[in-house]
């Protein structure tokens, strides 16, 4: 059928006038149908689309315009053992990643990712990604925490932006072969008897709710860092994909593993990339000491993030923080000199200047640990197909890639620059596998009325109510308790406190009030929906952390300070029970070549 820019929906842009086969209306004239529906237009979603457009009728649903996806915020780099600067090897990349993950990463998946990394970078370069260059005109590479060679390919300190815009540009090249529903909000995943059938989504501009039927659905919906007070994550990172999956009766994996990045801009949480330390920046405590020599003398500031964040937190907790409240540490770039700061770290320079009024050329920048990356998410196999239960059975027609997924290549702690890589590598793999899967799959029928009614009922509950609870205080209290009771350091008693608080907030949320009753661009309602997601997954973060009586990677229990491979060398799987409660089960980690050993830097 023929679509034109005029007859296309507002908020969905169609890049050519012809859109072969897309958008078959049902008799009611409302059902949207595509072979493949991708939710998310960050690196993972766009890379998958690249693989599929032209071969299948493929659509992307995204709650923000593609170029505004959070991948664009990534600063420091993307890892690949190109060996442009030194004698790096894929072997070393694999080992560093396994070790960085504190041995919770699945080693077969890690091997796939690292092996495919150089090809991935060259491919992005060929598509036009502007990479910074060496004197030999090759892609430049720099140091990053936990990587034992100069491995991070970068575009100044705007690497994610450069990669995301490169793929966004490609969507224009795909013309009518790809349909993008921008500013559409996915609210529900439809899975029946282990078969995925589609999603329900809402056009934000009009409030119209539609069922999208699909032979295959791919979630590439990003992370869940927003439930912390200090976070580097976009407001959009509210774990929508993870929660839609969970509510559809599927498990979530390793949710307790949340990475805290050592250099969030004090009080804002905005990220100052590790590239700042990769280029030679120091961390100082309130006494002006480079405290990392106490914690990781070998790697100093370039130890993995979990270790550096904990070191900072220890300095702060023991009274050696900087500032009037001794509640931050300092990132010192002064010795790098103005020229290098402006050439290699321009964004960091401007962020410090615009948000804190600090000139990084002349003064050290106040920083603190900030919730940054979600290691946990939707469990998948190595081809991104979603896993149904602890036996590893799979859901038909449902895939996940990028930060919303848990393959798991990052295990208990992600190494910086590995997640842009993950999104690109596994986005492509998902695309390839979906091409196969969709050619044999059939569209199945959906009870459209029932699906929409289910979503409407949830929304009506919060919109058409005389309830009194305010949205913002609930969110604020949640973020506070997550940061201070389930953050860099955790203990059994603090987690119990956090758990109690989260359930109490969930209860209050049932009576939350949404003042905005309009249909069009109702961000008040979206915030309420998102808060519902945050409350639900936060409980899983806390529950997983409470159960896991050990310290591993980003999960640091003060009451169980060591790693316990005997009991805990496994992935947590959280299932939703009929009554809305949860149940935790466990699944073994895949170990191929590297037996767990003590992790020292």
């Amino acid at each position: 059928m023929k679509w034109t820019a005029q007859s296309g929906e507002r908020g969905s842009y169609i890049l050519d006038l012809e859109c072969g086969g897309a958008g078959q209306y049902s008799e009611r004239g409302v059902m949207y149908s595509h072979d493949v529906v991708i939710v998310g237009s960050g690196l993972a979603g766009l890379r998958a689309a690249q693989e599929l457009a032209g071969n299948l009728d493929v659509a992307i649903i995204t709650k923000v315009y593609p170029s505004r996806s959070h991948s664009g915020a990534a600063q420091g780099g993307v890892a690949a053992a190109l060996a442009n600067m030194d004698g790096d090897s894929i072997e070393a990349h694999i080992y560093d990643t396994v070790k960085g993950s504190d041995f919770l990463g699945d080693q077969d998946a890690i091997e796939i990712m690292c092996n495919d990394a150089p090809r991935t970078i060259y491919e992005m370069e060929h598509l036009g990604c502007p990479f910074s260059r060496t004197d030999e005109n090759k892609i430049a590479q720099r140091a990053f925490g936990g990587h034992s060679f100069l491995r991070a390919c970068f575009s100044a300190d705007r690497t994610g932006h450069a990669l995301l815009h490169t793929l966004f540009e490609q969507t224009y090249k795909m013309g009518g072969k790809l349909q993008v529903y921008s500013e559409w909000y996915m609210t529900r995943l439809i899975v029946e008897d282990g078969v995925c059938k589609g999603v329900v989504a809402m056009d934000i501009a009009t409030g119209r709710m539609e069922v999208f039927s699909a032979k295959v659905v791919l979630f590439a919906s990003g992370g869940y860092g927003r439930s912390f007070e200090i976070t580097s994550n976009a407001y959009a990172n509210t774990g929508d994909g993870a929660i839609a999956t969970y509510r559809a009766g599927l498990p979530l994996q390793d949710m307790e593993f949340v990475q805290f990045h050592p250099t969030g801009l004090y009080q804002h949480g905005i990220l100052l990339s590790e590239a700042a330390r990769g280029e030679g920046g120091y961390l100082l405590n309130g006494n002006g000491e480079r405290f990392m020599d106490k914690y990781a003398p070998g790697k100093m500031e370039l130890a993995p993030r979990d270790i550096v964040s904990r070191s900072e937190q220890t300095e702060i907790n023991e009274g050696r923080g900087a500032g009037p409240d001794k509640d931050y540490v300092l990132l010192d770039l002064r010795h790098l000199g103005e020229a290098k700061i402006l050439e290699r770290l321009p964004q960091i320079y401007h962020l410090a200047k615009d948000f804190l009024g600090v000139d990084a050329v002349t003064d050290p920048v106040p920083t603190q640990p900030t919730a940054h990356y979600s290691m946990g998410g939707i469990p998948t196999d190595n081809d991104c197909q979603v896993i149904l239960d602890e036996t590893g059975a799979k859901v038909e027609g449902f895939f996940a890639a990028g930060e919303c997924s848990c393959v798991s290549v990052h295990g208990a702690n992600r190494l910086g620059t590995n997640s842009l890589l993950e999104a690109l590598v596994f986005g492509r793999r998902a695309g390839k596998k979906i091409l196969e899967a969709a050619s044999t799959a059939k569209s199945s029928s959906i009870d459209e009325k029932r699906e929409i009614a289910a979503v409407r009922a949830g929304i009506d509950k919060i919109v058409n109510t005389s309830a009194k609870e305010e949205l913002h205080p609930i969110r604020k209290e949640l973020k506070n308790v997550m940061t201070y009771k389930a953050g860099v350091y955790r203990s059994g008693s603090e987690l119990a406190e956090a758990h109690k608080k989260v359930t109490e907030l969930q209860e209050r949320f049932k009576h939350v009030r949404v003042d905005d009753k309009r249909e069009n661009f109702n961000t008040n309602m979206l915030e309420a929906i998102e808060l519902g997601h945050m409350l639900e997954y936060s409980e899983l973060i806390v529950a997983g952390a409470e159960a896991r009586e050990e310290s591993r990677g980003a999960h640091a229990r003060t009451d169980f300070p060591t790693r316990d491979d005997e009991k805990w060398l496994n992935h947590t799987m959280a299932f939703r029970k009929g009554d809305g409660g949860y149940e935790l089960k466990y699944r073994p980690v895949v170990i191929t070549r590297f037996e767990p050993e003590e992790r020292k830097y």
Partner: protein
Amino acid sequence: MSNGEVTFIIERFDPEKDTAPYPQEYKVILEPGQTLLNCLNNIKWTQDQTLAYRYSCGSAICGSCAMRINGKAVLACKTQVSDCVKDGVIRLAPIGNTKVVRDLVVDLEPFWNALKRVRPYLTPDSQDAPEKEREQTAEEFSKIDPSTTCIMCGACYSDCNVLEVDNQFLGPVALAKAHRFIFDSRDGGGHQRLTEISETNGIWDCTHCGECTTRCPTETKPLSRIEEIKVKAMAEGHHGNAGARHVLGFRETVGRRGLLDENYLPLRTVGFFNIPGLLSIMPVGLRMMWRGKNPPMIPHYVDKVGEVNNIFARFEEFRK
């Protein structure tokens, strides 16, 4: 103005129920270091949940939060409120050159569609992917470094004076995007791109007002990029269009006479053999004559025109 109470006057409009935009006031106690986005969130979360605006990253990289503050487009998340308060008041409105969807949210479809017209993707010379990266010198990279920083926030698009009168103009964002490929040593489509954007609605329609560069929150600075494209287009001989003829005509008459020959220039711009074009400007010429505004039929020379001729001659030599 530092701390204290600030009155936000925000332009509200819901086209589905309001007949016209109206101002609404909110009072906010300003804390040090607060950005405009912080304040908007404060208003939305504690005073009026119905206020609609876009934002996502909160760190000046996603491009969602452009809006007009006191009449000028900025990124809300990177603007310090204390820098913009005038007599305790801040006025907020949606960005310009767009249609309002609700409050500060505007329809961006025309904005994204304009990009299409510059084929915003790399068109390499050869389709065969080499085994490794293509080489690029640091200097070559530095040519595209500014234009690749564009975050597509639309601040320049909002305040572009040409777009305001002609929505067919490609506009600063699309032109900056074109720059990013024209100057990319890896792109093979430069010649074609230059031909296309030298035509009507392209580079030559820019009036150099500089609003785009003033508004740009990144290093893109569209006006500078447009200027660079113009220089390249001229240098590479893209002279078969009105804009280029105008430039050449300008140089010819000033170089010859030291003065602009205002009779010659329009004819040169349109093209001496372009009959329909000439006919189309005739009414203006006739009206000017009617009102006695036409330039003298026999053009003047400046005194000491020889010196001007010398300057031009030396410049030509220098250029060679």
